[in-house]
């Protein structure tokens, strides 16, 4: 066993967006001690949104947004342990063991392990032509099947599945989407938007089926068949599985940190061990703006929660309290969602929702709680500010395109 150095510094487990941004912010906010980054993938931290978007749309090139180039890590003296997986945390010794036998000590540990796609829980769910999308390799491997005429079956009509469906369609594939529930993107958007997007996909030739249970994946290695509960068999060239993710919280569970569908952290990003912080998809964090504990699967959260905890480790006192924000790109329509989708909220339409150019606003009483923008990025941003103010707002003004949201925001702020 290696002995503990005098000042082991900060160790980050997870080389994704959250891990990378945490390190960038540690150095940016004056932390000068040792930093070690542990990541299972062989790559430096990169942003994942493109994996289900640009990477699948343009299969001839790669648009990878690296958090920082390789020379930055060298210049900032960050020790990189990539292609190595942390297997356990000894909180008493403040040490992390890796699958290659290495032991890494820490003063402060950051868990940024993210979330992993759920596998299809049926016989044959591990068929080699079943693809999930989390890593660069996943995306590279899936897109080799996006050729004209290929039969692509997408299981799950969530954001990832629909983005993959839109990309496959653009390459001339025959795309079938199978969804267990009754509408698309049901967790994130109200029925009005679900209907609009179902129609959008169908207008591009996607076969979209609801209420479909899958019982098995059969067929030889290069010719999978999706077996449905109603007896239908659907042959495919590739299957995209987009049925949600599970937080990678196993290390935290095993070392006794509080975990509740994600590692529990407070508004400062601290776990129940003061030497351990967590950030990104893996956390269930308290958001004081809403008075709720949230687990978010989003780029914004991965970046900004990581920055907040890095600043706290660097000696500041930062409360992470942001209005959630998320986006999806399908068929050239940019959808952005901000706030918390609230089932049963009353809705207001601003602009031309049917024409994919406007805002759908969700109100609880006279409070704006969520906004969904379709190709309406600037208005969406003002709506986000209005949500974060947490004050009553006149629904008639929100609905009136003659009232600029910039002016409305100014009026609300000056009250």
């Amino acid at each position: 066993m290696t002995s503990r150095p005098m000042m082991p510094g900060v160790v980050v487990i997870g080389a994704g967006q959250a891990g990378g941004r945490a390190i960038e912010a540690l150095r940016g906010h004056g932390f000068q001690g040792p930093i070690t980054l542990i990541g299972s993938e062989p790559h430096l931290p990169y942003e994942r949104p493109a994996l289900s978007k640009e990477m699948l749309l343009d299969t001839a090139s790669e648009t990878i947004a690296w958090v920082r180039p390789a020379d930055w890590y060298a210049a900032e003296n960050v020790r990189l342990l990539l292609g190595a997986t942390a297997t356990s945390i000894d909180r008493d010794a403040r040490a992390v063991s890796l699958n290659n036998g290495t032991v890494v000590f820490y003063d402060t540990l950051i868990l940024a392990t993210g979330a992993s796609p759920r596998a299809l829980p049926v016989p044959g769910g591990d068929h080699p032509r079943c693809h999930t999308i989390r890593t660069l390799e996943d995306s590279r491997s899936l897109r080799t099947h996006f050729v004209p005429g290929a039969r692509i079956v997408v299981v799950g009509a969530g954001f990832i599945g629909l983005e993959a469906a839109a990309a496959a369609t653009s390459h001339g594939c025959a795309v079938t989407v199978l969804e267990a529930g009754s509408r698309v993107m049901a967790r994130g958007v109200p029925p009005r938007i679900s209907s609009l997007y179902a129609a959008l996909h169908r207008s591009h030739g996607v076969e979209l089926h609801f209420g479909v249970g899958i019982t098995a994946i059969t067929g030889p290695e290069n010719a999978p068949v999706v077996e449905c509960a109603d007896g239908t068999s659907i042959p495919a060239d590739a299957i995209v599985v987009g049925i949600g993710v599970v937080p990678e919280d196993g290390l935290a569970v095993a070392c006794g940190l509080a975990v509740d569908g994600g590692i529990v952290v407070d508004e400062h990003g601290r776990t129940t061990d003061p030497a351990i912080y967590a950030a990104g998809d893996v956390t269930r964090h308290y958001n004081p703006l809403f008075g709720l504990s949230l687990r978010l699967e989003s780029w914004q959260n991965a970046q900004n929660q990581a920055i907040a905890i890095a600043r706290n480790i660097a000696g500041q006192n930062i409360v992470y309290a942001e209005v959630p924000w998320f986006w999806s790109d399908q068929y050239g329509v940019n959808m952005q969602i901000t706030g918390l989708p609230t089932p049963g909220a009353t809705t207001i339409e601003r602009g031309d929702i049917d024409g994919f150019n406007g805002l759908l606003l969700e109100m609880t009483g006279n409070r704006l709680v969520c906004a969904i923008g379709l190709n309406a990025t600037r208005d969406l941003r003002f709506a986000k500010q209005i949500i974060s103010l947490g004050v009553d707002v006149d629904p008639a003004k929100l609905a009136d395109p003659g009232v600029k949201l910039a002016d409305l925001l100014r009026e609300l702020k000056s009250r």
Partner: protein
Amino acid sequence: MTDQPAGSRLVALCDVAEVTEDTPAQVDHDGEVYAVFAHDGAYYVTQDLCTHGPGNLSEGYVEGCEVECPFHQGKFNFITGAPTAPPCTDALRVWAVTVQDGKICIDPAQA
């Protein structure tokens, strides 16, 4: 006869009336897309495309002399072009502005 330095070739991008502090303008001129900003009675021109990803800064959210990209909410100072919030790390190109006859003009060659 003008007071311009030799070699300067000003082109008009838009009318000052087309730009407010809240709403920058997007101008496509000769294959280059510009974002035009107003702040404290002056005008500023940057490249429209964010240096981090495919976001149009003219669609961005303006606060003071900063613009927030609508794509990833990174920020730039539109006077200097410097990135001021992650994920942006590379500066924008900026052009010096001359206002002539109510028009916002730049020399495209002088980024």
